[in-house]
């Protein structure tokens, strides 16, 4: 193996890492917010909202992300009301289309993960909260969300890792993130093995850090699931 080539490849690919990180961070952020709206509709008492959420989750979980991305990138421009709307300057940008489709897709999965978290809340703990006078947003903020989030965290961390890998699809709508740059390098050098190996190492390192952070978060949030400390806990 050509070490010098590997090092120069690494440098080229790492230059595209900020683009991968931007795709990832923006889509997880907006997808997470959208997922909260979807899950709120999904568990609401309103039948129209509930059915909309069910349909949304079915469509975005049930169809390939790549096709969703193509439909948004190549498809939206066909509609005059979009082409001539104030949104078009944004929507014709490949980066915006990639973030949009990644966020829409992860929102569908995350909404289901959050819903399972909500269903795992012990009814007795909700009843205790109601009995001291909590309801509505206060109940959600103080009791429902914190418990549901803890239950959802392991599954959600898998979804977050999936999102890191899904950013690779953005290369197919001409966003120059790590995988896209790797393919361009291969087209120039015909050295598939070394280039993709470097790209894989970057994704692995990135996901290693993300998974470590997620499991640290889970550890910090769940002292109640561990055995009692042998020595008294110091004052906080």
């Amino acid at each position: 193996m050509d070490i010098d080539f590997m090092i120069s490849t690494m440098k080229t690919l790492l230059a595209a890492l900020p683009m991968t990180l931007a795709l990832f961070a923006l889509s997880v952020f907006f997808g997470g917010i959208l997922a909260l709206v979807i899950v709120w509709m999904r568990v609401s008492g309103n039948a129209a909202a509930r059915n909309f959420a069910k349909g949304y989750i079915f469509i975005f979980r049930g169809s390939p992300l790549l096709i969703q991305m193509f439909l948004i990138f190549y498809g939206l421009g066909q509609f005059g009301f979009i082409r001539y709307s104030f949104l078009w300057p944004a929507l014709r940008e490949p980066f915006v289309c990639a973030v949009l489709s990644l966020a829409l897709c992860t929102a569908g999965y995350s909404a289901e993960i959050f819903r399972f978290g909500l269903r795992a809340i012990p009814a007795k703990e909700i009843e205790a909260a109601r009995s001291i006078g909590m309801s509505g947003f206060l109940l959600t903020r103080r009791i429902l969300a914190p418990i549901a989030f803890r239950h959802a965290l392991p599954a959600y961390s898998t979804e977050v890792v999936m999102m890191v890998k899904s950013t690779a699809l953005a290369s197919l709508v001409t966003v120059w993130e790590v995988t896209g740059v790797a393919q361009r390098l291969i087209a120039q050098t015909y050295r598939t093995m070394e280039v993709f190996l470097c790209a894989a190492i970057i994704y692995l390192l990135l996901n290693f850090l993300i998974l470590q952070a997620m499991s640290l978060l889970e550890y910090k949030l769940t002292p109640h699931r561990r055995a009692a400390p042998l020595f008294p806990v110091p004052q906080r």
Partner: protein
Amino acid sequence: MNPTPLNQTGTTMAGTTRLSVRNIRKSFGTHEVLRGISLEARDGDVISLLGASGSGKSTFLRCINLLEIADHGEISVDGELIQMQQRGGKNVPSNRRQVDRIRSELGMVFQSFNLWSHMTILENVIEGPVHVLKRARAECIAEAEALLEKVGIAEKRHAYPAHLSGGQQQRAAIARSLAMKPKVMLFDEPTSALDPELVGEVLRVMRSLAEEGMTMLVVTHEMSFARNVSNRVIFMKSGEIDSDGTPDDLFGQGGSASFRQFIGNFGG
């Protein structure tokens, strides 16, 4: 036995009415669980609700703080009537904020403690005062620590519920209710989920509350508590009040034949 009830502050006739329940009815499907129950609790009253399982005593208690909504009847807490309305053929509270406020004035202690498992004992106790009553956190912590001291688990304040015994968890749950400074305490079989050797420590806390003059409604199977701590015993049968009187009266000669048979099962 001693004829004077242990709680001295609640000399029965004098106090103000803390809780008034009139003609509560409740059905689950076609099964009528409560068939018109009325009850009045004055300041300092300690009322034990006895009855076989299925007699409706827990449902009655849960109707008082609207964890179950009665189909019919009126409930007033400290003179304030809970507003109800008919919607879609069902009786529902018409003012959510009033329900929340009334609930914050009624302490509820559950059979299986229902502590929030992800919070420490101290966090459980200050949750209501800080977030429902919106009081200053430092002040709530000081009060909570005094309450935990009082129920005897101060050293457990930074432990999580899962790390405590059942008796300790129930005492923490009582402290959590007391932190709201309730006008009336409702106990729903507070010792039924406990190992026999842990029952005493919870009953001792309840007894000291009664002696301080707390108005209490206690669904229980603890005959000694009903007999020695409460100043009034209500025996329910098939969703109705069968016997109602002082413990001396009921455990003496005044109880009905059904009540005699019921306490006979406890060796009482």
